[in-house]
């Protein structure tokens, strides 16, 4: 980067707020998806909205692309730096600015850690509902960018359900307020479109969130089934019985083995494990849990445990929450995939994955948000064996194709980022993608904010959307334009 620009940026964020030394820059060369790496020109650590605005004004004037970064826990390369660009790290903007219990809202800066919000509001028996597995380290700004989910979004919704308003610095440095503390602000729901835009529309500097009252009672049931088919049938029965559990999670045998090896969750050794959590008024939960228990038995569950205390529940969840990291115990390398299918397609999709896995000679462990059809197949391989990595990558991509063919999605919560741009063209047609990019052209006509992510091909914002073609009537001189 030009010395003059470095000096100008340093004047904005101070010496402590600008990283340019090659050794330190390496820390920022990737996020939690480590197979893509780009060293940025510099990393900026602003401490205020003003500073973010000043940085983006410089970037805009100098046409320097930028990538916003929170805790760097993303799994799709969303925070991967771009060539000849800078990283804007929001970790120092980490204040909880306001807690408003009567209205059940909090206002936070983007660098605030997800779980810290719950930590602050817990004494009043509130919590912040979206709970990605990385919630103890991931930031709200990152959650907003990715529209993060979690095990409990089946009942409570995703990040977007809980974001009421945003203060955003647009890619030209101007400030805009999207949504607000009260609902249905006049105009387009721009907060709705900003959440989940993976950092491509600007940088959020303040986030107004909803918090939720803790339910009166929470019961968690753990049921051991002979295979994922029976467990899947039990899930269908639970939904058909008109229940909406807070979470339904499934693990297959390989995932259970890994979890056991890693954290000794004391899970039964079985073909598939189902974890069903119900919450709400005590009498209601008690009644429904009896019903869930019966359904599981009738579908062949041979062991059922019900956790009622916080301690028991923590133990039940321990193995599930640790499932990804646990793969290291049974395989030297693995790819975490994230796809979605209509829940009813589970038996078919599982058998297809199984078939592909055997064909490729690569093992696949399955962890599954069974209530909403979000699959997390973990493709296990050994990099040291020639050809295995390529086979694992190919298999992982084929799983996405299976999800699309089943009417699902290429990502339920990890995002498209750098990783799945290619698959976007499989899920959407060119007109679909072009239409989405009209939004991008409105927010960021120069395409400076996390460019090269999400879309397989950028839309040139200069071109007139929908080129004018003279109508035949007009050409024939029958009609005229006015």
């Amino acid at each position, binding site marked *: 980067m030009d010395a003059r620009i470095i000096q100008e940026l340093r004047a904005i964020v101070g010496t402590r707020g600008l990283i340019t030394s090659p050794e330190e820059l390496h820390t920022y060369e990737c996020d939690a998806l480590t197979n893509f790496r780009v060293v940025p020109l510099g990393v900026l650590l602003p401490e205020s909205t003003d500073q973010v605005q000043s940085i983006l004004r410089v970037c805009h004037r100098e046409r320097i692309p930028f990538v916003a970064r929170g805790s760097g826990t993303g799994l799709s390369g969303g925070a991967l730096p771009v060539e000849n660009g800078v990283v804007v790290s929001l970790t120092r903007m980490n204040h909880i600015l306001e807690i408003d219990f009567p*209205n*059940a809202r909090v206002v936070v800066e983007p660098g605030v850690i997800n779980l810290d919000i719950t930590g602050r509001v817990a004494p009043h028996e509130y919590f912040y509902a979206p709970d990605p597995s990385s919630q103890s380290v991931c930031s709200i700004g990152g959650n907003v960018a990715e529209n993060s*989910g979690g095990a409990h979004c089946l009942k409570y919704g995703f990040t977007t*359900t809980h974001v009421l308003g945003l203060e955003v610095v647009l890619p030209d440095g*101007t400030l*805009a*307020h999207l949504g*607000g*503390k*009260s*609902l*249905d*602000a*006049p105009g*387009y*729901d721009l907060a*709705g*479109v900003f959440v*989940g*835009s993976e950092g491509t529309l600007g940088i959020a500097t303040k986030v107004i969130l909803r918090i939720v009252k803790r*339910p*009166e009672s929470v019961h968690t049931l753990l049921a051991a089934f002979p295979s994922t088919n029976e467990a899947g049938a039990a899930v*269908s029965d639970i*939904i*058909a019985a*008109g*229940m909406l559990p807070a979470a339904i999670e499934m693990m297959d045998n390989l995932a259970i083995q890994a979890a056991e090896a890693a954290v000794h969750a004391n899970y039964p050794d079985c073909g598939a494990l189902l974890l069903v959590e119900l919450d709400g*008024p*005590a*009498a*209601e939960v*008690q009644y429904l849990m009896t019903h869930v228990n019966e359904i599981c038995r009738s579908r062949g569950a041979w062991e059922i445990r019900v956790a009622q205390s916080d301690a028991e529940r923590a133990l039940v969840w321990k193995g599930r929450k640790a499932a990804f990291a646990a793969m290291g115990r049974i395989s030297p390398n693995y790819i975490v995939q994230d796809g*979605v299918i*209509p829940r*009813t397609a589970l038996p078919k999709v599982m058998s297809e994955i199984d078939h592909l896995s055997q064909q490729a000679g690569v093992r696949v462990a399955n962890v599954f948000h069974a209530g*909403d059809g979000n699959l997390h197949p973990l493709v296990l391989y050994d990099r040291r064996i020639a050809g295995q990595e390529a086979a694992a990558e190919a298999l992982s991509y084929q799983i996405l194709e299976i999800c699309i063919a089943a009417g*699902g*999605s290429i*990502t339920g919560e*990890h995002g*498209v980022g750098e990783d799945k741009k290619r698959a976007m063209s499989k*899920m*959407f047609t060119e*007109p*679909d993608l*072009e*239409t*989405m990019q*009209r*939004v991008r052209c*409105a*927010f960021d006509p120069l395409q400076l904010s996390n460019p090269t992510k*999400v879309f397989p091909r950028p839309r040139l914002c200069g071109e007139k*959307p*929908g080129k*004018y073609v*003279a109508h035949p*009537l*007009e050409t024939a001189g029958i009609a005229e334009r*006015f």
Partner: protein
Amino acid sequence: MDSPVSSNSTQIAAPFEDAARAIVGAEHIRAASADDAVAEIQPQFVVEPGTEQELANVLKLANDAGLTILPRGGGTKLAWGNPPQRADIVLSTARLNAILEHAWSDLTVTVEAGSTIKQLRETLAEHGQRLALDALWPSRATVGGILSTNDSGALRIRFGSLRDLVIGITLALPDGTLAKSGGKVVKNVAGYDLPKLVTGALGTLGVITQATFRLHPLPKESRTISCLARDPQEAQRLILAIQNSKLAHSALQIRFVESMPPQIDVLFEATQAGLTAQVGQLKAILAPSATVDSGPAVWNARQELYSAAKDNESGAALAKISILPAQIAEAFEKLRSVAANQIRCSAVIQATGIGSVYLEAPPAALADALKTLRSKFEAMGGSLMIAQWPAAMLSIDAWGDPGDALPLMRAIKQQFDPRSTLNPGRFVGGI
């Protein structure tokens, strides 16, 4: 702006009619009648395409010819928004009314935009499910219409609004593009969330042709409990106490009629066991106020206000307000302060802070009252949207202040509808 029957539009009308007829068939295009007028602006044609491709073709035809389009579903909320700057063609979704796929075991439904809410409700009920939203005038209102107006009722406090329920859409753009966004699965973060962008956009970005929703099971049992509060302050205290409790109510509203004491209504939907326990807890919170089992009719209160304003065209307006849950008593005071001598006022406010306000007064006084209320609610951080007002009332902006995001909204409009073909002038800031 041109008047609707300018010489230019007369010239272009006949060729448009021929071309549109070729697309939809002669029986599906007709001259517009006085009943098709919106805010006294008279369109020339009503076109009813039978497929989404036909709809996109008609839209492109009009766009290329420089004609403007009023998208229309059931026509129940056509009064919402500012009067159109021009209105050449009504593009009706009436024939796009198929329920394409009720994937009941996946709790989703995909439906064409012209399906009525009642039709959808009946289909979903066959498998014990529902779209958990109590829309206005369900027997006529359509899926496309409720999405475009972002209609929501009392169930919002538990199930969210349409932005939380819609998971996919197909949109026809003025250049003839048909684009999908979202999908058919509840959990999906691939690409931008255009379903949210078009929800509440009043048809100014594109015409919704299809939507996919997440569904909820119909409740096993339901029960409504009501009680009278002494005054707005007590009502406020009780609302916040219920919100701060561990009750899992499905709806909570305050009704306010003239100077009568405010009435609180609470809806529970649960199993019998859950109902009994929760009603007991609710009574403890409301004590010593007496409670009654009031039945489901109280949940019509919102629609009754909207209908009353519609029927009383000589001198009544209906405004949708949005404030914070803890500002309800303050909002009541503001309403009371304008409801003097000439002005009658009733309101229903949900515990979410979304309220429906009915005001009856001579036109000049009505306009003044609405302006005063809007400035008071905006000062509180909220908003006031005028949904319906009498023709005789001095025209004031329907929406209020969109804040500093207005340039961004204009840029979005420019990208989707650069020639302002769709509902010109009806949305915020002249969009």
